[in-house]
């Protein structure tokens, strides 16, 4: 079983990415399926799997498809390369605009030097690229502890902090 960084911990991954339906009915487990499969096989997946998460292409309009995803325990977003930031906007919208509270997982070209940006945009699970050192990736989540602007994490905007400082 591969490992995943969840929260600030490195844990065994209990989810399986199931891009296509298996030839024979798969062992029950926690499956991450592409959005197209989720649309087509929703009832069957819910009946057979222990849990179902959904993988979105980074070109998907998350607001439009959110009704299909709102009750999912996990949404996986993709980084074809770490410099392709489309999934960062998807994550921010899921967290801030749509109020999604389940696991938000980053898949693909997930490297140590992307971890900090992922954490700020609301990802709470990372599956790093195979060549990456997991400990280093975990530490990089908090690489910079100061932020100017709000995102999908706990940082208040700097102008709000300065208001408080001026007041008190």
């Amino acid at each position, binding site marked *: 079983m591969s490992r995943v960084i969840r929260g600030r911990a490195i844990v065994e991954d209990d989810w399986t990415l199931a891009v296509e339906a298996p030839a024979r009915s798969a062992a029950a487990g926690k499956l991450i399926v592409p959005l197209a499969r989720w649309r087509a096989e929703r009832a069957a997946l819910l009946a057979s799997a222990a849990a179902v998460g959904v993988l979105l292409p980074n070109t998907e309009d998350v607001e439009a498809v959110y009704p299909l995803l709102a009750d999912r325990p996990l949404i996986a977003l993709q980084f074809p390369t770490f410099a392709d930031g489309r999934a*960062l906007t998807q994550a921010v919208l899921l967290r801030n605009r749509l109020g999604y509270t389940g696991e938000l997982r980053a898949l693909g070209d997930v490297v140590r030097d992307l971890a900090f940006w992922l954490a700020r*945009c609301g990802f709470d699970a990372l599956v790093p690229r195979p060549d990456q050192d997991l400990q280093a990736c975990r530490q990089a989540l908090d690489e910079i502890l*100061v932020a100017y602007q*709000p995102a999908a994490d706990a940082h208040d905007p700097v*102008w709000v902090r*300065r208001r408080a400082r*001026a007041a008190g």
Partner: protein
Amino acid sequence: MYRYDATDRELLRQRTEQFRDQTRRYLAGQLPEDDFRQLRLRNGLYQQRHAPMLRISVPYGLLESAQLRRMARIVRTYDRGYGHFTTRQNIQLNWPRLEQVPDLLAELAEVQLHSIQACGNDTRNITSDYLAGVADDEIVDPRPYCELLRQFVTLHPEFYWLPRKFKFGFTGATVDRAATRTNDAAVHVLRRDGAVGYRCFVGGGLGRLPLLGQEMNAFVPEPDLLMYACAILRTFNRFGRRDNIHKARIKIVLREWGIERFRAAIEEEYAKIRSSAEGERLRLLPEDIERMRGHFSAPPYRPASEVAADVTGQAARDPRFAAWLKRNVRAHRMPGYRVVFVSLKAPQRAPGDCTAAQFEALAELCDTYSFGELRSTYDQNLVLADVAERTLYALWGRLDAAQLATPNIGLTTDITACPGLDFCGLANAGTIGVTQDIYRRFDSLDAQYEIGPIRITMSGCVNGCGHHSVGHIGILGVAKHGEEWYQVTLGGSPGHDAAIGERVGRALARNEIADGVERLMRAYLTLRSDDDETFIECYRRAGIAPFKSALYGSESDSETVAA
């Protein structure tokens, strides 16, 4: 001048250490080249012809003496004794060594300078009016808004990995001195019925497809600056093309969608932000703007009775001072003060270059004569914005001694140019040699004064860093059969009358280009209706045809003649 507080300093310190670790890993072979490339670009490091180029952001073109002294030390320690001011008001170093860059950045951070997002597909340094705060046509000082936006976009996690670079340009005046509409987004700060707001343009950009930004919103209310910026950047991040680097700027989205659909997308996102909790956090309160405005308050001007002077006597005795006074000094809105332009276009110098000794001299001069501050301009010169009339003659003498008083601001030899083939890995043709050819041709100041205001701009390749597309005379270097050739465009302008220049015809060879420019000048002097009609006004009235005939001499047109 914006002063860093503990938050700003700590953020910059942690960022500098982040890059130090990335560089260490790369040099130790622990970080693949392709991964490191993305990281170094976002710290201002661009691979050039001979060495990495380090671009240092100068936020909205504002510098102070401590920063200039530090630049002098840095170009001596880490480079070859000079730096280069760019068309985006930044400073570039051409010879740093990668292993020393983390130390260099740490030295910059001590004087609140940095290279964050100076290159790469992110939000770049914000440019602005170099006369902000002193221009007599100013409606609102744009600098507090520039700094509020600078902080918003700095290390913004959602917009750190954009499809392509994204540039903001600001003005708060009626004359656009920052080429704002050549930016991906232009923000014009203005008043309507007494309330401050922003007229926003989107989709400008030079390079292969030069376009001017189009108006997206005529009046975004003052508290909504960051919301509207967020709406633009989010729309770009979602819909900008990532399949072709040449089609990745936001201007391509606008062109492919058409302005109505594009505007609707931005306005819809803006409306969603505005009505949500996200909007609440982004909304600026009057106290936020007031606090930021406090960083840019006017310097302690002295009464006119103490600083005003009649310099006509000095000018009458010294014609060189008179020429400088006429060409490099402008009116100031405070009685008794003047705005002084520092020319970085001396003979035998690459446009925009500044030596360590000049950085030091400028530090000293701005401390002595201009409240410790200096501005960099869009056309690669510098400005001492608040000089007392009584000190003009003394200041001129010291600028002259430092070769910073060439009286050519806005004239033929005030050429804007990128570094070209001599330095840049992208360039197809040299620029510095051509500027020298043109310089020699018009070395006589009388000839330049006869021609009057003109903007000659030159880029060594189609990426257009020298802004050739918006020059009255634009020169673009191209490679043909391994030789350097030059295409000429006419009629471009970066200001409130912004226009993209029109290509005249076939390219000229290296040894023809200075002659060609001279023939264009002669044509103008013949064609102009009177001495007051400038080159660009004459071109707009007379059209391209007579200039085309002049450029190519007796040849018929052109494309058939091209090799």
